[in-house]
């Protein structure tokens, strides 16, 4: 079990290994990829939110000069109706195919319908206009509660609700309903002095990564397919493409290029199988790039939702019962993050009596994908504002309420398992002790709010190999896409074990043929689990180096010890050699040293944070300004504190965007009307104060250095914290996200 202690490398702030490449613009991204004989692919997308595809005639496009191939869903191989494991989530293979190229129906505007490969992008674009698709336009259903109605238009006529394992008789847009329950909620409410119940809605929100999706595929006559692309998981791409195109995984090699952000949205594949199909038809490399509008309309955002939370508490501030009703939009195919939302909704707290109901509902929107703590933000917006209302009613400081109701290790959760150790109280105390919380609020129309966010984190599988170089450095080969500085944090864990500086590690993110299986960069797992694999690989190197020192000194390996980067013999001969010195002598002691490490850790250790925000609301325009923001978070052990702070700040900013203005806006035809960064309003740097990130360290017992994943937790609290602050500034509780100026004016009764 890890204890709080000081390390030589872990916990320091070296310059990241990929930094120079990125700040000088030399890092190679997927769109930069070039090769000989490259063709360019373009994708035809459905203009309708819901339509039956009666026919597709590609003959005019195929005859267009410069066009080399056209593909549609007819070009897919037949697949079984089966669930494939894809790392952070599983999916039905038929649904995966159907999402890549629509079969019988187009289920959202932007749904991919056909694709063209041509000698240049403009020719391909011209050819798209020559594909004749006959649609029978159907009424769309966009909002979760509308889709749940008995008479709602059905997306999948053969889909029945999975009701706790039983299939419903009638077809429905509700893919699944589940319930967790413990204790006796009615008894709990009877014991309560105050009961608050409120309804909340949130809209569809996109991850908003800067780099659009891209893929270049080359299918060789020997049956070997190579894909160069931006992805959060090269092995996840390999797995999906292999399932969708029915090619053995051993015949698919995925080369991950640098990634310009993902946040969960670059796990699912869209154009990668299309590039592969076009290459299979033409025998040439084919490159497909998305535009920003393609990204908004055709890739997975995080769902809109309806959430109802009820909570009872005594006047002295003890939660007696709680329940949550969570209805989530899955998009066009089942698989919303409602399960994670149900897990997280009351996670920070000890709730002895409670129920949680979850509904997974299909609507005519793109199939949702992961987005930073998927589901948890929607749930916390509801639960954390209900708690604020209870605190107001009983006159208790919201931080004291959290300390009083904090779940402790071993408390049984509503969904069954015991709560693991996490520094909830520690993050609340850190916020309480921070000068922000006691600073006076000055001026009119200002208010301060707080909220917590909890995420369980994931473990999953990682592989690392380490090659010792003759100059005393190591090259570290890993399979985790580096989104947030994980090359550095993984390298640092190996350096710590080997007693060498972080700069003596050269980390490389390898392709799927060059490193052992590694799950996606997601679930806040990379610094934790790939770091764990690096730790294991470094231990392997250390042991082999001990054997080399023993050989050099002609002693038993048991007589060699290693401490502070120095190998020494313990047989009284006072022989010493440091890592570099020994590395220089590998040739005379048996040749190369290669260390291997794999990890599949089962104790990722949750992460939790407490956010404090001050806002000012313009009562005439309804605009919310964020004046001050402090975010505390339990990082277990911050391997590279700068990148932990960066994750906390980035997550908070995305949560602020979700709170204030980000949303998919639909017209009555089910068309998104704001598919650009102009009208999909992510906060700019002029909309934000400096986010003060406060790292709290309660070591994770499941990791040798106590590391907890940190990437996802910070997005969860901001909407609730801001809504609570807006209430204090205006006297009005906002129950809809985003809290855009028009909604604020309406809630204030100004319009």
């Amino acid at each position, binding site marked *: 079990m890890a204890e709080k202690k000081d390390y030589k490398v872990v916990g320091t702030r070296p310059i990241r290994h990929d930094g120079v490449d990125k700040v000088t613009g030399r890092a190679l991204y997927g769109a930069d990829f070039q090769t000989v004989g490259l063709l360019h692919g373009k994708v035809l997308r459905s203009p309708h939110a819901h339509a039956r595809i009666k026919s597709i005639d590609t003959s005019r496009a195929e005859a267009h000069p410069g066009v080399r191939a056209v593909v549609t869903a007819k070009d897919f191989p037949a697949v079984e109706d089966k669930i494939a494991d894809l790392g952070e989530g599983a999916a039905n293979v038929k649904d995966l195919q159907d999402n890549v190229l629509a079969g019988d129906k187009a289920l959202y505007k932007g749904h991919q319908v056909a694709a063209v490969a041509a000698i240049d992008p*403009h020719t391909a*674009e*011209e050819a798209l206009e020559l594909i004749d698709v006959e649609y029978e336009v159907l009424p769309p259903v966009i909002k979760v509660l509308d889709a749940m109605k008995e008479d709602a238009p059905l997306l999948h006529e053969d889909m029945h609700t999975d009701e706790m394992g039983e299939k419903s008789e009638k077809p429905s847009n509700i893919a699944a309903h589940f319930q967790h329950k413990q204790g006796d909620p009615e008894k709990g409410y009877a014991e309560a002095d105050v009961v608050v119940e409120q309804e909340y809605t949130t809209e569809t929100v996109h991850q908003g990564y800067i780099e659009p999706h891209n893929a270049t595929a080359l299918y060789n006559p020997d049956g070997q397919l190579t894909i160069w692309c931006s992805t959060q998981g090269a092995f996840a791409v390999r797995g999906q493409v292999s399932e969708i195109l029915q090619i053995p995984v051993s015949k698919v090699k995925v080369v991950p290029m640098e990634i310009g952000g993902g946040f969960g949205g670059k796990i699912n594949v869209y154009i990668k199988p299309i590039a592969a199909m076009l290459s299979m038809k033409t025998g040439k490399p084919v490159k497909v790039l998305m535009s920003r509008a393609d990204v908004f309309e055709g890739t997975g955002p995080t769902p809109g939702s309806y959430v109802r939370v009820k909570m009872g508490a005594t006047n002295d501030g003890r939660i007696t019962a709680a329940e949550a009703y969570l209805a989530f939009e899955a998009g066009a195919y089942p698989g919303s993050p409602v399960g994670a939302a149900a897990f997280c909704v009351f996670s920070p707290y000890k709730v002895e009596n409670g129920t949680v109901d979850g509904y997974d509902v299909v609507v005519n929107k793109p199939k949702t994908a992961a987005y930073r703590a998927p589901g948890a933000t929607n749930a916390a917006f509801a639960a954390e504002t209900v708690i604020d209302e209870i605190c107001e009613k009983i006159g208790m400081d919201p931080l004291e309420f959290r300390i009083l109701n904090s779940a402790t290790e071993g408390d049984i959760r509503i969904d069954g398992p015991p709560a693991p150790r996490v520094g909830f109280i520690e993050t609340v105390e850190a916020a309480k002790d921070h000068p922000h919380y006691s600073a006076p609020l000055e001026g009119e129309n200002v208010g301060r709010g707080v909220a917590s966010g909890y995420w369980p984190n994931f473990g999953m599988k990682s592989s690392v190999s380490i090659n010792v170089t003759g100059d005393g450095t190591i090259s570290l080969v890993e399979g985790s896409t580096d989104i947030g500085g994980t090359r550095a944090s993984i390298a640092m864990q190996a350096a710590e074990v080997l007693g060498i500086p972080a700069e003596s590690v050269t980390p490389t993110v390898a392709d799927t043929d060059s490193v052992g299986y590694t799950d996606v960069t997601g679930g806040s797992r990379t610094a934790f689990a790939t770091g764990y694999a690096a730790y294991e690989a470094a231990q392997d190197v250390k042991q082999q180096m001990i054997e080399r020192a023993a050989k050099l000194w002609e002693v038993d390996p048991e007589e060699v010890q290693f401490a502070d980067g120095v190998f020494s013999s313990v047989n009284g001969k006072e022989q010493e050699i440091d890592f570099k010195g020994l590395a220089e002598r590998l040739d005379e002691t048996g040749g190369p040293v290669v260390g291997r490490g794999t990890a599949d850790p089962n104790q990722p250790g949750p992460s939790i944070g407490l956010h404090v925000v001050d806002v000012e609301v313009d009562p*005439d*325009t*309804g*605009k919310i300004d964020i004046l001050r923001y402090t975010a505390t978070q339990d990082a277990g052990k911050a391997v590279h504190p700068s990148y932990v702070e960066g994750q906390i700040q980035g997550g908070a900013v995305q949560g602020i965007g979700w709170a*204030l*203005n980000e949303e998919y*806006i639909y017209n009555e035809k089910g068309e998104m*009307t*704001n598919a650009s*960064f*102009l*009208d999909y*309003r992510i*906060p*700019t740097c*002029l*909309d934000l104060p400096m986010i003060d990130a406060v790292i709290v360290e309660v070591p994770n017992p499941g990791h040798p250095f106590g590391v907890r994943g940190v990437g996802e937790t910070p997005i969860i609290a901001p909407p609730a914290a801001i809504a609570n602050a807006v209430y204090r500034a205006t006297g009005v509780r906002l129950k809809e996200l985003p809290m*855009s*100026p*028009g909604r604020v*004016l309406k809630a204030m009764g*100004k*319009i």
Partner: protein
Amino acid sequence: MRAFEYVPAKTVAEATSLLAEKGDQAKPLAGGTDLIVMVRENRRQLERMVDIKDLPEANVLSYSPDTGLELGAAVPCHEIYADDAVSAAYPGLIDAAKIIGGTAIQGRASVGGNLCNASPAADTIPPLIVLGAICVIAGPNGSTREVPAEQFCTAPGQTVLENGELLVSFKIPPPPKNSSSFYLRFIPRNEMDIAVVGAGASVILDDSKTSIVSARIGLAAVAPTPLLAEEAGASLAGKEISDEAIDAAAEAAQAIASPISDMRGTAEQRTHLVGVLTRRALNGAIQRVKEA
């Protein structure tokens, strides 16, 4: 995007004939910050772009306190707000020039292009209207005509320009004594947005700076074209400066707004904001006179 022809014009006459040849398939190109984007996104298809950035008449930026401002249609925003005399004389126009896009866009985007794009939400049009700007238009065969800014736009994306006509420059009268101007817009963020509502005001005060001699109010994003709120402005003439007078003008401005609901705001939100922003624009302009 389809291939198109790019032709830089050397004279106004050449530009108008190049435009006339292609009818609605030709457009003048100044900064291109709207036109190039529209063509690239297939929102508009063109056979020819006529670059007017080499035309001396479209690049003039000349101010004198006696004759006012002559502003070429292709002059980019940053050149306008970098000119101290122009900035001091027409602060309302500068308010708008400084908030169009970001710094890089302001290096290319022109006021003339902003007007010709004829967006209902264009930031520079309300200031042009309240400052009494006159649009100088060259036609084929050497003809010219002049149109007040408030009459230039006829519908979203549509203007008074006939086939072969080119907006060459603006004439803006010199600011009268005790006058100033102000423009502001409401956007949900602090940057990078298009106006949900925009409001511009110009005022002339008496020598004691306690009464309004005359006022003009211009509105954006609340009708198919930017509007001159004539009655709202006229209601202030001869009035002592007071919250009541300004509220009344704001209400009169609200009365002529006919906004739509779209992804930038609802009709009711926009109507409400017309009142808020008209008050703020008038107070802003009055404050500037008082501080001068």
